[in-house]
């Protein structure tokens, strides 16, 4: 209430409101998130195995450090899909996002596609500016990868 509430009280009230939520084990959430990203990477490796075996693609990882409220700072891997001519990077953005349980960005130059985690399922999502999302599977992933590499 402006006028009656001091600035410090205001900050305390907003902090309390912001943190008022059902008890969530954020350490477990962080572990789940990192494990879920690793599981996705494994799936992508399987989808790209043939191209790797034929020496057309190479997959590498890089450690990234993310910092999020409640989760603190933590290490998580980003995936690099390298061909001889271009690199596509899959980079974790955050576990805590609006309307989902995590997001990665798939980036190639100026092209960007969101990979989002919702109800323990991974999906592609894009704003063009209309929001659209569709399941992430071998077919959709290789289509998007090809489009990005073109």
């Amino acid at each position, binding site marked *: 209430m402006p006028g009656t509430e001091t600035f410090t009280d205001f900050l305390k009230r907003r902090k309390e409101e912001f943190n008022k*939520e059902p008890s969530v084990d954020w350490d477990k959430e962080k572990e789940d998130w990192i494990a879920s990203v690793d599981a996705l990477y494994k799936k992508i490796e399987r989808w790209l195995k043939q191209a790797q075996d034929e020496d057309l693609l190479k997959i590498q990882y890089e450690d990234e450090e993310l910092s999020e409220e409640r989760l603190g700072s933590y290490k998580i891997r980003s995936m690099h899909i390298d061909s001889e001519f271009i690199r596509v990077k899959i980079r974790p953005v955050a576990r805590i*996002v*609006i*309307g989902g349980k995590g997001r990665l960005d798939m980036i190639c130059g100026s092209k960007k596609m969101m990979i*989002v985690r919702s109800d323990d399922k991974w999906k592609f*999502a894009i*704003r063009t500016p209309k*929001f659209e999302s569709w399941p992430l599977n071998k077919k959709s992933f290789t289509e998007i990868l090809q489009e990005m590499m073109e």
Partner: protein
Amino acid sequence: MTRKKIPLNPDRPRVREIWDYYAASTKALKLYQKELLDSLANENVQSDSNEARFMPKSEVFDLLESYYTELSQEVVLTLSSIFEAELRLDYQHRVRNRFKDDISKSFRVLHKKHGERIRMETLLNVWKKRYSECGRHISLFERLILFRHWLAHGRYWINKSDEFTPELSLTCADNLFTSLPNFDTWESIDQPNT
């Protein structure tokens, strides 16, 4: 030669209306901001905002900042167009009523040459010449017009002039119009909190 009078629009927007719109839109944005932050704070609180969907907090802040900037610039554009209209209305008012003061006489001379369609810069130059004591207010107003020019042309070049908020724009116009003698068409308003 008889020059055609510009038919005046009785429903032209007024500063008060635009200011109320600005206040209401700011309030709506603050509510929207609260909805997004609540949704980030508590995953059980759903937001149906597609434009912010899957955004982390840092991107939500960038998005909100861009919306506040957009609203501010939209309002500055509308306000400054109203200020321009005020200057032109004052010109017409003085010409049509054939007032005897120096500025009205100068305007009548201009009117013989240009009619009612006259460049705002020309009007400002007349004011500057006749009332040099208002020069500081006119200079600031000219900077506002430069900013308006940038907004109105789609901001396609990098703006090197001053940036104006709605609050500063209104103060700038109010200072000018209340310092100009007999600028009767201007209705000064107090700036409420937005």
